[in-house]
């Protein structure tokens, strides 16, 4: 049976808010979230004959997620289309704040410390690095487990091993290191 436009309108009105909220919760600005929701429903409309049974929500969710992934992915792959700004355009410099004189000695110390940390992280296994990166991105254990298709216990184990190895390799660093978002129970 082919869905008619009245049935589609009912679906649109029932689920538009949920789809819009999905984009907003994913960090998309308000007007963009409406655009993406429209795109998702346009795709649903184009494929309305593929809606199985009385419940279109599962199919619509797949379309909305695909729309979001395309949107986020495009931001990484469309740099070649970015607007080019002339660096000698005086208008682009008008509002720049005055920067204080740099402390070269401090900057050199910072660079050396970061280079040392970067080198230590590079010696970790790929699996350990992945866990550290995602935790630095603010993901919880559960989110990391879901993202990497591994168990929460595996996430904790990899993190613990990674931090132990880093501590050993950074032993010469005065003051040691402070792990952002450290779990005190595991740090001991």
């Amino acid at each position, binding site marked *: 049976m082919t869905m008619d436009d009245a049935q589609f*309108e009912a679906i*649109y*009105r029932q689920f*538009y*808010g*949920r789809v*819009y*909220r*999905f984009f907003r*919760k*994913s*960090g998309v600005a308000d007007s*963009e979230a409406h*655009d993406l*929701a*429209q*795109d*998702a*429903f*346009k795709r649903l*409309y184009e494929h309305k004959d593929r809606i199985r049974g009385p419940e279109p929500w599962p199919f619509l*969710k797949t379309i*909305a*997620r*695909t*729309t*979001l*992934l*395309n*949107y986020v*992915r*495009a*931001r*990484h*792959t*469309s740099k070649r*289309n970015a607007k080019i700004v002339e660096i000698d355009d005086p208008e682009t410099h008008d509002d720049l704040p005055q920067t204080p004189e740099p402390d070269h000695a401090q900057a050199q110390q*910072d660079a050396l*410390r*970061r280079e040392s*940390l970067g080198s230590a*992280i*590079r010696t970790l296994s*790929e699996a350990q*690095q*992945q866990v550290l*990166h*995602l935790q*630095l*991105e603010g*993901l919880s254990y559960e*989110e990391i487990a879901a*993202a990497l*298709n591994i168990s929460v216990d595996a996430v904790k184990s990899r993190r613990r091993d990674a931090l132990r190895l880093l501590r050993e390799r950074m032993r010469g*660093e*005065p*003051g040691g*290191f402070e*792990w*952002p978002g450290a779990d005190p129970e595991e740090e001991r």
Partner: protein
Amino acid sequence: MITKSDWQAVHAQLLAERRSRLGDPPTVEEMLAYANGELSKDDEERVRALLVGYPELLRALHADFDEDDSGEALPQGVVNRQWNAFRRNIARPETGRVLQFWRATAAIAAVLAVTFGALLWRAQSQLDEPGLMTPQTLYLEPEGGLRGGSDVPKTIEPTADLFLLNIPLRNEQHFDSYRIDIAAANARKPLRSLEAQRPEDDLFTVVVRRAFLPAGAYEAVVYGVDGAGTRQIARYPFRVR
């Protein structure tokens, strides 16, 4: 002492290195297959390593939906407005339906926002002849998958003598007027539209006879025109079989 800002700086640097080493993000199909556990072991490892380098994509891949309507509801007026805009976008003559010429002319005139000078003249000359016609409506997507568009150029399978090309305008910056060029790959001179105002529903519709778009690769390019000059806004690659 290694501080939080050190961690963040090194993290950013290592992510940049990872992206540079591993290349572009996985395709959407790969990401969905990864999330569904449908990839081979090697592919799964490759996609996982890439996704770590693009954490925004990981978040999008695992973002949750509201499974009910207990979240903050949109005002009914907003939903009405969005529905009306949506309905305008999908409203089109049914492909394949046989129309009397004056009905077809009226239908095209109703949606026509941008006209291709000489092309339109010739197309209208054809339309003015009593007869039958079957316009084919097509929707183009901006290049680069912008806002859910595809990375793959849209392919047109001609089924009619007249194309109605719908070109959605995504750029939020407003210009005094707009122009659209359509160029074949390697063509020296594009087909150039007259300048037109921005349509209320941000959807330009271009009428082109099939005879002017033989099989090949094309690109529609939208330009914004104002006192500062002409600026390219978006590109819409497509192919005609």
